[in-house]
C-alpha cells in the first residue's frame, strides 16, 4: 500500500470512475446520442438559402395607378415636372432591391392570391402569371412558384389624392396570418414612403421604436440562412444539454453519499471537484466539437479560436451543473433547478434565431458572450482581436459561476 499516491493518479482514477458510471447510465447515453443525432439532423434539414426578396402584390397594376393619377393631376393643372417625378417613383418601385412586385387586376384577385386560392408563378423572362390551381390552364414550363407575403389595394385616386391633398387616401393591406409582424410593418412603411415621395412632404407618420440586438444582425447583402444560424446554436444547445447529465452525475454522488466514501480515502475535496470539472468540461466540449465538425464549422483559420470559445462554454455549463447538482435534493428538485438556471441562460440563443425579438438586457446574461462569439466566429469568421472583449467577458462570467458552483458543492459535500 502506498500513502503517497499522487494527485494526478487520484484524478485519473476518479475520472475513469466517472466515465464508467456515465457510460452505464442509459438516460445519459440516450440524451447524448439523441442530442447529437437530433441537432445534426436539424442542421441539415433547415434551408440553406436565404429568401432575400419580400414579395408583395398590389392592385391596381402600377401602370394603371399612375396613368389614372397623371390624368387627374393634369386636369388639376399640376406642372409637368411633378409628373416626371411620379414616373421616377414607378421606376424606383419596380427596381427596388429586396422587393418582388406582383401586380393584379383587382382587389378580389388580390385577396385570392394572398389567401392562397390562386397561385403566382414567375417565368424565366420575369413574367408574372396568376394561376388558378382548380382551372384548366397549365403552368408555363420553367416557371417557379412565388408566394406573396402581403397584398396592398390602392384606391385609383391614390396619386391625385396624395399629391393634391384633397382627401386622405386609404390603402388596404392584406396579409396572411402567418406573415410576421415585421413584414407587415415594412409594407406599411413602404406605403408611407411612396406617399411621401409623391406628395413631397413629410407625412405625420411616426415609425415605431426599434431596438435591434447586434446578434444575428442582417448585414446588407450578407443575409444568413437558417442553417448557418443553427451552426452556433447547435453547439450551444449541446453544451446546455450536457448540463442535465453532469448535474445528475454530481447530485447522485451527493445523494447516494458515495462522496463521503471517497473522502475517507486519500481523496481530498479538491480532487473530487477537479475531477468533476475535468470530466464535465471534457464531456461537454467533446460533444460540442464533434457537432461543430459535423456541421462544418471549423476552418483552417478559426479552429483554435473556436476551440477556446467552446472550452469557455463547457466550463461555464460545468459550473452551472455543479450549482444544479448541489442544489437539488432529489431528481425532481434537480430538474426544477435545472430549469431555473437554464431557461434564462437559453435566452441569448433566441437573439440569433430571431434577431430583434429580445431586449438589450440579454447582453448581461452569462451565456450571451458565448452565443455571440460562437455566432460571430462560425458565421462571420471574426478573429482573435475582434473577439477579445467578449472572451474576457465570457471568462469573467465563467469564473464567477464556477466559483459559485465550487462554493455550493463544497459546502454540500462538507455538510454530508
Amino acid at each position, binding site marked *: *500500500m502506498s500513502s503517497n499516491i499522487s494527485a494526478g493518479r*487520484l484524478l485519473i*482514477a*476518479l475520472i475513469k*470512475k466517472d466515465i464508467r458510471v456515465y457510460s452505464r447510465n442509459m438516460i445519459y447515453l440516450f440524451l447524448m446520442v439523441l442530442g447529437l443525432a437530433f441537432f445534426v439532423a436539424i442542421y441539415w434539414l433547415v434551408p440553406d438559402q436565404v429568401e432575400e426578396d419580400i414579395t408583395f402584390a398590389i392592385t391596381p397594376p402600377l401602370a394603371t395607378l399612375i396613368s389614372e393619377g397623371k390624368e387627374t393631376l393634369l386636369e388639376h393643372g399640376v406642372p409637368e415636372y411633378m409628373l416626371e417625378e411620379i414616373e421616377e417613383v414607378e421606376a424606383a418601385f419596380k427596381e427596388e432591391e429586396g422587393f418582388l412586385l406582383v401586380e393584379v387586376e383587382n382587389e378580389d384577385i388580390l385577396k385570392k392570391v394572398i389567401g392562397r386560392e390562386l397561385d403566382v408563378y414567375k417565368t424565366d423572362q420575369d413574367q408574372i402569371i396568376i394561376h388558378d390551381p382548380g382551372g384548366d390552364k397549365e403552368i408555363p414550363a420553367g416557371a417557379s412558384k412565388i408566394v406573396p407575403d402581403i397584398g396592398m389595394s390602392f384606391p385609383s385616386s391614390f396619386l391625385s389624392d396624395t399629391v393634391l391633398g384633397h382627401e386622405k387616401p386609404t390603402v388596404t393591406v392584406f396579409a396572411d396570418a402567418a406573415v410576421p409582424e415585421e413584414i407587415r410593418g415594412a409594407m406599411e412603411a413602404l406605403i408611407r414612403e411612396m406617399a411621401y415621395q409623391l406628395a413631397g412632404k413629410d407625412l405625420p407618420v411616426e415609425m415605431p421604436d426599434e431596438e435591434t440586438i447586434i446578434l444575428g444582425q442582417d448585414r446588407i447583402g450578407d443575409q444568413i440562412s437558417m442553417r448557418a444560424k443553427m451552426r452556433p446554436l447547435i453547439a450551444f444547445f449541446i453544451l446546455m444539454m450536457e448540463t442535465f447529465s453532469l448535474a445528475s452525475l454530481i447530485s447522485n454522488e451527493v445523494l447516494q*453519499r458515495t462522496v*463521503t466514501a471517497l473522502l475517507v480515502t486519500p*481523496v481530498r475535496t479538491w480532487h473530487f471537484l477537479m475531477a468533476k470539472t475535468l470530466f464535465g468540461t471534457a464531456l461537454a466540449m467533446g460533444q460540442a466539437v464533434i457537432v461543430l465538425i459535423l456541421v462544418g464549422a471549423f476552418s483552417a483559420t478559426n479552429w483554435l479560436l473556436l476551440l477556446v470559445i467552446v472550452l469557455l462554454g463547457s466550463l461555464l455549463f460545468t459550473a452551472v451543473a455543479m450549482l444544479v447538482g448541489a442544489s437539488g435534493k432529489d431528481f425532481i428538485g434537480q430538474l426544477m433547478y435545472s430549469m431555473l438556471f437554464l431557461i434564462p441562460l437559453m435566452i441569448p440563443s433566441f437573439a440569433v434565431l430571431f434577431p430583434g425579438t429580445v431586449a438589450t438586457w440579454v447582453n448581461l446574461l452569462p451565456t450571451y458572450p458565448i452565443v455571440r462569439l460562437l455566432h460571430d466566429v462560425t458565421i462571420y469568421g471574426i478573429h482573435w482581436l475582434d473577439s477579445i472583449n467578449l472572451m474576457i467577458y465570457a471568462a469573467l462570467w465563467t469564473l464567477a459561476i464556477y466559483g459559485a458552483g465550487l462554493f455550493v458543492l463544497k459546502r454540500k459535500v462538507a455538510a454530508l
Partner: protein
Amino acid sequence: MTAPSIEVKDLSHWYGNLQAVKEVSFDVYPGEILGFLGPNGAGKSTTIKVLTGQLALQEGRAKILRRDIGREDPVLQSQIGVSFEEKNLYLEMSALENLNFFASLFGIRDAGSAEALQRVGLSDRAKDRVSSFSKGMRQRLMIARAFINKPSVLFLDEPTDGLDPVTANQIRKTIREEADRGAAVLLTTHNMHEADELSDRVAFINEGEIVALDTAERLKLEYGKRSIRVRLRDGDGVREEKLPLDGEQSSARLSELAASPDLMTIHTEEATLEAIFIHLTGRGLVG
C-alpha cells in the same frame, strides 16, 4: 507496552446547540475490537465521523496511529478503513469494479479484490452490478471495501444492521479475522449479542456520554447479578425458583432443592449487556 491505535481524550461534538458527543475518552489497541454499544442517536456514529474526518474536530483530542486527526490527512486516511451505515456504493459498477476503484485510490495495483469478495462470499457475483444486489450483499461488499487497503484501523458503523443471522455471522467472522491480523477495530452497534460476541471491550454510550467501558465479562461481574434457576415438579405442573448465585442462604437452599425428588433442571443465569445497559442508563438499547 504497545501504543494505542486510536486515542481519544475528552472529545465533544455539537450540531448547532445540540451536544451529540460529551467529553468521551477511550483507547483502542492493535488487534482489539472495541464495541460502541448504545441506542440510535446516542452519539456513536458522530464519534466515528469525527475520527474519520467526516466531521471537524470541535473539542478534545484524538490521535490515530499517533497522528493528530484532522480533515483531509491523506497519510492517515490511507491507513484507515471505514464501513458506513448507509450503503454508499457505486450502483452502476460491479462489485469487482467498486473494489478495484477504491483500491486505486489507495495506490494499490494488485488489490486482491477477488480474494476480498471471496472472504465476504460474493465471488459468484463479482461481475454483477451492485444495483442488482440485496441489502445483505451490499453490506458484505461494504465490509470488503473497508478492508481493501489492509487498514491498521477500522471504523465499522453498524456493520450487521438489518442482516439475516447467517450473513451477520459471516461478517462478524471477517471482522474478527481483521482484528487477528492486527487491526484496531472501533465498531458501533445497538445489538448486544454482537457487542458481547465480537468485542474485546465494550463501551456503553448514552446521550453522548460513555457510561461504562470494560470487557463484557467484567461489566457483567460488576453490574450484573448472577442467579440459578431451578425447575421442580409440582403435582401435574412445574414450578421455578430463582436464587442469587452469591450468598450463604442461596447455597443452603440450593443443596436442599438439589436433594428434592421433584428436581427437574438447574440452570445458571448471568446478566445480559442489555440488562446492564438498562441498569446504568435507565433506557433500552432499541429506540
